[in-house]
């Protein structure tokens, strides 16, 4: 792959009170790639996302985003540098309306998001952008609903609308299908494809194999806090290390 990596993780590890949660993970992700991260529960997938996004700081190794070293930078600095993420359980401003959720993200990305001297208006750029993004994920009808009152699937879509509004270059999706009824899966897959459009790089932890295999360029397999393999889906599934270590099936 000729493109310079947009995200590179070099020998990253995490130790908490003597316990090794993650060790020696090295990944280099070129711009525009969609990468699936799989592995049994407790393998360290979410921890890896937390280290990349700054929710936790790596105790070893280096995280680079667009060439900038981010290992010790706080969450909001990484977000401003173009990193967006979702969480395993949907994480929204439940007491605010759907459009306000998205508008906050749009404002933050545009700068001056927390000024006392500026007011949100129905006609301003951020609101229009927010409305467009809601429309894009199919939530235009719910713009004024409280985020906390939306269904599981709609909450997921709202989170993605927020990501779209931020327009990050790298996106981490932590189990975007978790808790979503099977009826909503195809629609949500479509929305995730939208995210990937325009050269965005997407990393996704997901247990739905058909989702992973249908979307991703490469698959990273985690096990016991280590990266077992990272390759095309076909190669990974035929990799003997993966087969022998990855006992049982991910359900």
């Amino acid at each position, binding site marked *: 792959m000729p493109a310079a990596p947009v995200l590179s993780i070099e020998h990253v590890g995490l130790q908490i009170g003597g316990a090794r949660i993650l060790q020696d993970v090295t990944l280099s992700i070129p711009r525009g790639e969609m990468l699936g991260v799989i592995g049994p*529960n*407790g393998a360290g997938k979410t921890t890896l996302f937390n280290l990349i996004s700054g929710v936790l700081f790596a105790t070893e190794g280096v995280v680079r985003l667009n060439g900038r070293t981010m290992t010790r930078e706080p969450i909001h600095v990484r977000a401003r540098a173009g990193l967006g993420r979702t969480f395993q359980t949907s994480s929204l401003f439940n007491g605010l309306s759907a459009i306000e959720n998205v508008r906050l993200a749009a404002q933050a990305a545009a700068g001056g998001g927390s000024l006392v001297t500026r007011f949100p208006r129905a006609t301003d750029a951020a609101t229009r952008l927010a409305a467009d993004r809601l429309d894009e994920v199919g939530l235009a009808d719910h713009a004024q609903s409280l985020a906390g009152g939306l269904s599981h699937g709609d909450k997921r879509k709202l989170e993605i609308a927020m990501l779209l509004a931020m327009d990050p270059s790298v996106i981490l999706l932590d189990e975007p299908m*978790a808790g979503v009824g099977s009826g909503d899966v195809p629609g949500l897959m479509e929305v995730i494809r939208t995210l990937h459009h325009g050269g965005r790089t997407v990393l996704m932890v997901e247990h739905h194999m058909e989702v992973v295999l249908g979307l991703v360029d490469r698959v990273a397999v985690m096990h*016991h806090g280590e990266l077992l393999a990272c390759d095309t889906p076909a190669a990974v599934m035929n990799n003997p290390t993966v087969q022998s270590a990855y006992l*049982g099936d991910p359900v």
Partner: protein
Amino acid sequence: MSTNSSTNLSSNILTVRNLYGRIEGQQVVEDVSFDVPDTGVTALLGRNGVGKTSTIKSILGLIDRTGEVTLGGRRVDRLPTHKVVQLGVGYVPEDREVFGKLTVAENLKLAERSAKPNRALVEKLFPDLVQRQAQLAGTLSGGQQQMVSLARALLNQNRLLLVDEPTKGLSPKIVGEVAQALLIAARTVPILLVEQNLQVIRQLADRVVVLSGGRVVFTGEASELLDHPERIQRFLGVHSGSGQADAAVPA
């Protein structure tokens, strides 16, 4: 929805009818109904985030719930958690939840509900714990912590065990030991087991209950699910062959 509940109600130790669970106002269990017979292992399956753990917690009252739960013919859905447990329910939580700042001995002592705890069984199953009884539980390995968690449940005379993902994040050798311990326990007490490792399910489960989108979509004998790869694929999202090379096969 096929709820092939047994015709003879008296042979069920646990019946769950129209169970709803919520966490902070969010619906996480939706209209779930199933039975657990008074012998053998019933596996509660489903994709990640589908509400298996929440179902277990709702049964125990660890999260807000409504609906009908009967244990050995007695309604327990209005009882606080400790009362439900005192009626003879052993609980092995997801992520083990041992008290890290208490010693192994203290962890076990805390769990003893009767004057005559079954220490002999625990000592036989987990000789390692006897040696480490003065050690702080927080300093144990994941596998050892799981032993403590299991031992806490097995110390008491129970009518039902609720075991939530006991092999999560454990190495293959420990997975085998945990499965062995559960197999021995299952001779004397019925178990409702949440598990993601298909091998372990094959080894232990007599019956299966499958959740999807917060609801029960399949119940039946274990073989009715496990011998039908297309059902496994449909309900659990896993491409399943047999034996070791189960992981997942490229599409």
